[in-house]
């Protein structure tokens, strides 16, 4: 919200800044990646007081609530917004932070939890609590309740939303740091930018504005695809562009930042760094590019090439970005589920 740079503490007697790191619907990988900046974490500690980070430090929501608005200098918020509690925390941290950063794929575009948007609460609960999966044993069909009466009073659980939202679909966001998780060197670069006070325009993604292909050493010749292949169907040669070998590599649509790690080990990019600068809808961009190079002019053949090679288009094109896409989710059968 604030245009000014976060107060940077560099040990020169300046007051230390306040840093919060929060997680919502996410896996914890972002925190691990923060720790991956290694000894530079000491520089972070020198510059900031960590006021909240449930993953690695004790901190009370109550303390945050007591803070003045804008008291926190930087908040790295990872995870999408799936429950009322997460939404509450997002709003709270927004209010208390000068600079709120959507940190990692979940917060920026929904990521894997966002694929839950193909279903609704009812379906997700049915699957988690009722269906006969190997990990489900629930003979009494117990389900989470928003309110439970106990002798001491009412116990509340956060309610679970039908639709996972990204951070910026919930509150105003200052900057974005993509990646699942963001690569540690990129995190440090972002922190350096924040510390420098030389901030980009609000709403910017701190990172590169080119795509993974830029870092991929494979040779690219001619893109024409007659058949999309699944990864187990071929052993790709390690010279040629994976896409030109029929593998659906998302590198061409995905923001650079990872250094093309996956394609370098013969594994196609799956798109965790999200869309490139200025792209509104990652999946639409990617599918457009891919469809454009299908080598057929016959509608039936095209349909067959697609349905054979891409049996799960959402998982292929929107694996990380469904919640953050223009469509945001699959169509819901009913306006909204009524109870948990």
């Amino acid at each position, binding site marked *: 919200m604030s245009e000014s740079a976060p107060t940077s503490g560099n040990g020169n007697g300046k007051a230390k800044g306040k840093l919060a790191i929060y997680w919502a619907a996410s896996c914890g990988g972002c925190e691990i990646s923060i720790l991956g900046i290694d000894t530079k974490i000491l520089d972070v500690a020198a510059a900031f007081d960590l006021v909240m980070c449930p993953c690695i430090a004790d901190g009370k929501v*109550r303390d945050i609530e007591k803070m003045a608005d804008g008291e926190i200098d930087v908040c790295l918020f990872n995870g999408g917004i799936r429950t*009322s509690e997460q939404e*509450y925390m997002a709003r709270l941290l927004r209010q208390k932070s000068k600079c709120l950063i959507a940190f990692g794929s979940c917060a920026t575009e929904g990521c894997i939890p966002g694929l839950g948007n193909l279903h609704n609460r009812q379906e997700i609960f049915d699957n988690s609590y009722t269906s006969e999966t190997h990990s489900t044993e629930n003979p009494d069909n117990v389900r989470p309740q928003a309110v439970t009466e106990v002798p001491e009073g009412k116990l509340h659980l*956060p309610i679970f939303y039908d639709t996972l939202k990204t951070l910026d679909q919930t509150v105003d966001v200052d900057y974005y740091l993509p990646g699942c998780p963001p690569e540690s060197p990129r995190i440090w670069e972002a922190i350096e930018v924040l510390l420098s006070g030389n901030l980009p325009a609000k709403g910017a993604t701190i990172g590169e504005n080119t795509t993974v292909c830029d870092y991929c050493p494979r040779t690219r010749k001619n893109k024409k695809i007659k058949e999309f292949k699944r990864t187990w169907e071929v052993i790709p040669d390690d010279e040629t562009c994976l896409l030109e070998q029929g593998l659906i590599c998302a590198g061409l649509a995905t923001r650079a930042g990872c250094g093309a790690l996956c394609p370098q080990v013969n594994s196609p990019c799956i798109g965790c760094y999200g869309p490139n600068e200025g792209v509104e809808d990652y999946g639409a961009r990617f599918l457009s590019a891919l*469809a454009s190079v299908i080598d*057929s002019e016959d509608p039936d053949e095209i349909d067959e090439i697609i349905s054979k090679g891409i049996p799960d288009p959402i998982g292929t*094109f929107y694996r990380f970005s469904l919640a953050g896409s*223009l469509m945001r989710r699959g169509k819901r059968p009913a306006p909204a589920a009524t109870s948990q």
Partner: protein
Amino acid sequence: MSEQVFEPKIVGFLCNWCSYRAADLAGSARITHAPNVRIVRVMCSGRVDPSFVMKAFSLGADAVLIAGCHPGECHYIEQNYKAMRRFHMLRQTLKAMGVEEQRIQLVWASAAEGQQLAEAIDKMVDEVRQLGPLGWSGNWEENGERIQALEDIVKEHEQAMEVTA
């Protein structure tokens, strides 16, 4: 359903050289057709970016029409084939999201086919009318219990603060 007839809102992407001219021709020949398609002119059906379609749906369109020159007759030689490939990929993707196939249609109409374009529009409007509104804008909204739950959290935290204060 309501007693009012549902009038679908359809966004139509028409290529400058064939289908837009076909619509012009339908006009000069006064070929009456349904008024539901709001036309966006693009130079070529190959310009139609799948995100245009996504955008239209997310902004409340009930259906999207893409129209171009006939295959092999593209003003830009072969670009409508690219439109065709994208259309098929897009349709399968939208289907996976639960958007019915009739809501995204690709029609070929040469500059001389005002009649054909008008018929295709009428047919599409009929089909979408049968399906009813798509209602995508707001498809992601939660119901009222969300507000209640947020209020509860605020109340609970306030009470907790009073206790500790």
